[in-house]
């Protein structure tokens, strides 16, 4: 029998190893799997490379993971956000690496990694410093830059509802990078606000087919990151 549901965030992230490449869903706080990230902080894996659009805010979630020096390198499009001080501080001290990728190229690289496409050409970033050192090529007289698919060891993703097969739906703009990150990891770990029965999700409306998911954990009342930041909370909890 197929049952991808595990009982706790701790169990879900237990196998993550030092040096892993991990994709983390979310655009700002929307879609950020904060309970899985906190479980990863507790778990202790270090020397991680993280692919995520931002670098977290305040001292919780992704920012806390970075603050605890578990992250060697960030691959992201926008490492500055409101209330984001942890990454900028470490970066300016030279204590964390940054690979800056245009947001659409980041999305396409993740999608390509999941789809078995090792490389593709895109017009984005041509004639800019972000194309420096990359292979350029013209198609029909227009220049493009070659970019590589990215694959992860693990993806940590937040969704709205999941069933035991790992079929997922998302909530509004919290969908963002989740569906493509699910496809691109060897092991995709999902936190779901609701666990539902097989068939409860309309087969026409499944966003992530279960084939892309390995483990699901129910987190009924996920933390509100903005609220934690307003309350000046730190993880581990102060």
């Amino acid at each position: 029998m197929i049952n991808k549901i595990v009982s706790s965030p701790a169990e879900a992230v237990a196998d993550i190893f030092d040096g892993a490449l991990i994709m983390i869903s979310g655009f700002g706080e929307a879609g950020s799997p904060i309970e899985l990230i906190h479980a990863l902080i507790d778990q202790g894996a270090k020397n991680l490379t993280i692919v995520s659009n931002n670098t977290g805010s305040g001292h919780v979630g992704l920012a806390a993971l970075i603050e605890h020096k578990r992250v060697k390198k960030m691959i992201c499009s926008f490492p500055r956000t409101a209330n984001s001080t942890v990454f900028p501080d470490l970066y300016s001290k030279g204590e964390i690496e940054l690979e800056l990728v245009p947001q659409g190229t980041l999305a396409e690289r993740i999608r390509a990694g999941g789809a078995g496409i090792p490389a593709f050409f895109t017009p984005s970033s041509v004639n800019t410093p972000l194309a420096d050192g990359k292979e350029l090529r013209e198609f029909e007289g227009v220049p493009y830059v070659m970019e590589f698919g990215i694959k992860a060891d693990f993806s940590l993703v937040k969704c709205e509802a999941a069933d035991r097969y790992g079929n997922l739906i998302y909530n509004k703009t919290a969908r963002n990078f989740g569906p493509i990150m699910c496809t691109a990891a060897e092991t995709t770990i999902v936190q779901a606000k609701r666990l539902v029965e097989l068939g409860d999700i309309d087969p026409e409306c499944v966003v992530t087919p279960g084939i892309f998911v390995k483990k699901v954990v129910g987190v009924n009342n996920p933390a509100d990151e903005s609220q934690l930041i307003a309350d000046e909370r730190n993880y581990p909890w102060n």
Partner: protein
Amino acid sequence: MELNENNIGWSREEMAQKVALDIPDGAYVNLGIGMPELVADYVPEGREVIYHTENGLLGMGPVPEESEKDPELINAGKKHITAIKGACFFHHADSFTMIRGKHIDICVLGAFQVSVDGDIANWSTGKPGAIPAVGGAMDLVAGVKRIFVITQHNTKDGKSKIVNNCTYPLTGKGVVETIYTDLAIIDVKKDGLFVREMGPNVNFEYLQKHTEVPLIQ
């Protein structure tokens, strides 16, 4: 099934059953058109297997009753099917993301020829004037983690389908893991073709006599 006339070897159904035994619980499986489709009937008790059909469904169920047939619910062979509880529909690019991205565990295919190196030819006989048609075969052999071939051991005119080199145009190179024929189950390994099991009333001498390539017992 001319080789079976003296009760030698397995029936089509038994071959499908042998394949089904090698599909683990929880596997995502794509079944090719024809004999591979029989495999779905023999999933051992207690195992849950999810079938992918490349035209956009994960969770293909059994053939529907006549009254429940929907022309918009078909499999890759364009036959009427059903969807199981927990199924989902998606478009072709997402479907081949599953295939090319190595998300499907097992694909069971028919073949014209399989070589000692695991090359497979199953899309074109290369005859001049024939209409070539490839479908998803090349994507499946390039992308699915494990490729099983189910086929009669010999052609209707007695030629070995297991060959030193495929003479038909290739579908993929070095991709086949195991060959399930009416005579034997044969694992394709780096150092040769290993006979794992032989069918009823088949001995190694008989099997080798019907095979172009030296087999290893």
